[in-house]
């Protein structure tokens, strides 16, 4: 598949009748254009935590002057689940189901990130087939996460149909995830040193079929949105973050790249052999919602490219490292062979024990850089398990982006951050 970047010639020239560029951040617009006659009294409006447009249990308290937002104060913690505390009471393989539930839109990608972090801590080298399968899992999940973002952002901005399209595409990936792991959403795909299971017969053909037909859905979305006057009007120049601001606010993922910063963990700190795959990373220019949209749309295209290359690269072989202290032996051997039974017993009852030390591993999740930081004291349960949450950090820039915006823009900006509250609150 050839390189594909969105070539857009906008219907508008980008400048209004006076020749002034229309794609100017709202904050730069002269004061008083929106709030001339509405007096000095400010209103405090509470949005959430239960609200269809807040993408989860997020609460925004906005101070309004008329329709303009003077300040936006987010309140989070309404989904705080204590994952990091729970992780201290779990063996390393038992933490994997917990990772499904932080960013539940891309569960496999979290599973992979965790396994990579523990493997870094233990100095384990995984097999080639495992590496390729994990790339497939990550990219599939990039697609489904961006599809949810697309559908829900469409709803927030008034376009309901793409929601149904994107969820229909997601169902096709869910079928693949279910036939591989047994679960549609909470996959628990990886184990330390390998995977829970190999892909079944016919799975590759299913994924190839998806890759063949998915671009036509993307084209439909492109047709519906990219040159749509309403979409452009609501997203261009809104929620702008400059390059320096984006770096200073520690943004990551499409939020950072839409502001023009060329940082993608897959390119800058490659893992799982990403340096050998041929793919492009879309970088935006203006840092507004429209750029975030084009970056994510393009990322879905590029993920399809990577998936096809990974499928070509897949060779038969073992998916787990051949270390009996790490990988559970097959049940038939555990029941018949004394040594295998002992290994099984030790792993299940005691768990695997990494050496004393610590490791941080960052992966490029669809939301941004997801990092797992483990501190180990040589026992089977970590001393500290820290999730570096991309959505949490991306969301902290929301007050900055909403200054001077209209109330409806707050909803659009919130949608463009692409948060998942499970990860924000952990």
């Amino acid at each position, binding site marked *: 598949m050839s390189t594909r970047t969105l070539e857009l010639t906008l219907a508008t020239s980008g400048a209004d009748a006076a020749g002034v560029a229309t794609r100017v951040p709202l904050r730069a617009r002269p004061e008083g254009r929106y709030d001339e006659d509405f007096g000095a009294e*400010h209103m*405090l409006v*509470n949005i959430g935590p239960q609200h269809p447009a807040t993408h989860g249990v997020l609460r925004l*308290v906005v*101070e309004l002057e008329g329709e303009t937002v003077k*300040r936006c*104060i987010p*309140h*989070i*913690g309404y989904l*705080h689940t*204590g994952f*990091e*505390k*729970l992780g201290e*009471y779990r063996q390393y393989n038992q933490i994997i189901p917990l990772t499904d539930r932080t960013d539940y839109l891309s569960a496999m990608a979290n599973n992979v990130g965790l396994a990579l972090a523990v493997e*870094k*801590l233990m*100095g384990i080298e995984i097999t080639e087939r495992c590496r390729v399968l994990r790339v497939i899992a990550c990219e599939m999940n990039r697609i489904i996460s961006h599809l949810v973002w697309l559908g829900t952002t469409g709803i927030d901005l008034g376009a309901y149909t793409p929601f149904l399209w994107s969820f229909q595409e997601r169902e096709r990936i869910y079928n693949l995830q279910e036939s591989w792991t047994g679960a549609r959403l909470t996959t628990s795909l990886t184990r330390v040193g390998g995977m829970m299971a190999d892909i079944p017969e016919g799975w590759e053909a299913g994924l190839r079929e998806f890759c063949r037909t998915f671009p036509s859905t993307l084209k439909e979305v492109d047709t519906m949105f990219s040159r749509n006057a309403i979409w452009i009007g609501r997203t261009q120049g809104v929620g702008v973050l400059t390059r320096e*601001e984006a*770096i*200073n*606010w*520690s*943004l990551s993922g499409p939020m950072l790249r839409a502001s023009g*910063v060329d*940082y993608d963990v897959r390119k*800058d*700190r490659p893992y799982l052999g990403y340096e050998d795959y041929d793919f492009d990373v879309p970088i935006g220019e203006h840092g507004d919602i429209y750029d975030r949209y084009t970056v994510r749309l393009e990322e879905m295209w590029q993920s399809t490219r990577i998936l096809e290359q990974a499928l070509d690269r897949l060779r038969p072989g073992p998916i787990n490292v051949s270390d009996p202290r790490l990988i559970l032996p097959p049940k038939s051997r555990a029941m018949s062979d004394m040594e295998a039974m002992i290994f099984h017993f030790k792993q299940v009852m005691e768990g695997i024990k990494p050496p004393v*030390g*610590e*490791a*941080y591993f*960052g992966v490029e999740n669809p939301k941004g*850089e997801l*990092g797992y*930081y483990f*501190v180990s*004291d040589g026992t089977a349960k970590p*001393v*500290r398990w*820290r999730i*570096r949450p991309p959505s*949490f*950090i991306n*969301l*902290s*820039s929301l007050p*900055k982006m909403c200054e001077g915006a209209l109330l409806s823009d707050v909803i659009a900006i919130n949608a463009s951050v692409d948060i998942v509250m499970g990860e924000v*609150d*952990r």
Partner: protein
Amino acid sequence: MVISSVAALRERWGDAVERVTESCGDTIVYLRRAEAHDILAWLRDTTGQEFNYLTDVTAVEYRDPERALELVYQLRSLGRREDLRVKVALEKSEPLEVRSVYDLWHGADWLEREVYDMFGITFAGHPDLRRILMWETYAEGFPLRKDFPLRGHFSRAEQTRQALAANPEAHYSLEELSIADAFGELPKDMQERLARGERGVVK
């Protein structure tokens, strides 16, 4: 693989760099608490260091109760493509307080609030140090500390009672209340606590 910044750090800051270790290929530098903020600023601004991206701020408490708490900063230089982990050891016998790095990286805003919420480490100079994940008047303690049991200190009935007693509208910060002129509508005990200067900071 200890990175080149370490030598420059030692040369410039001498004893303030307490020690340098390495784990799984990551370089870890321990800084003295007093100079930590200035050293981080130096790391951000000096040519040749340029650690312009703050990846993460968190804290670690070890199972050994004698061991100090560690405040962990993950830094990255986007241009030079290098990572550095900086730690500040906080002895439990002393007040757990450090200078905030919000003025260096705004990304530290919520990250430091979370460390405060979960560990009780206060950050001097932070613009709005309130609890972020738990509710502001959460009375059970700091959840990620090792002396905090998994299920909390209170019984389930007591936790449920406290949860139901919390008026959802009372969860406005002082900043928000001053905008809305709504101080008079708050429950009595919250008025008293705010009047005493409490801002959700549990002593």
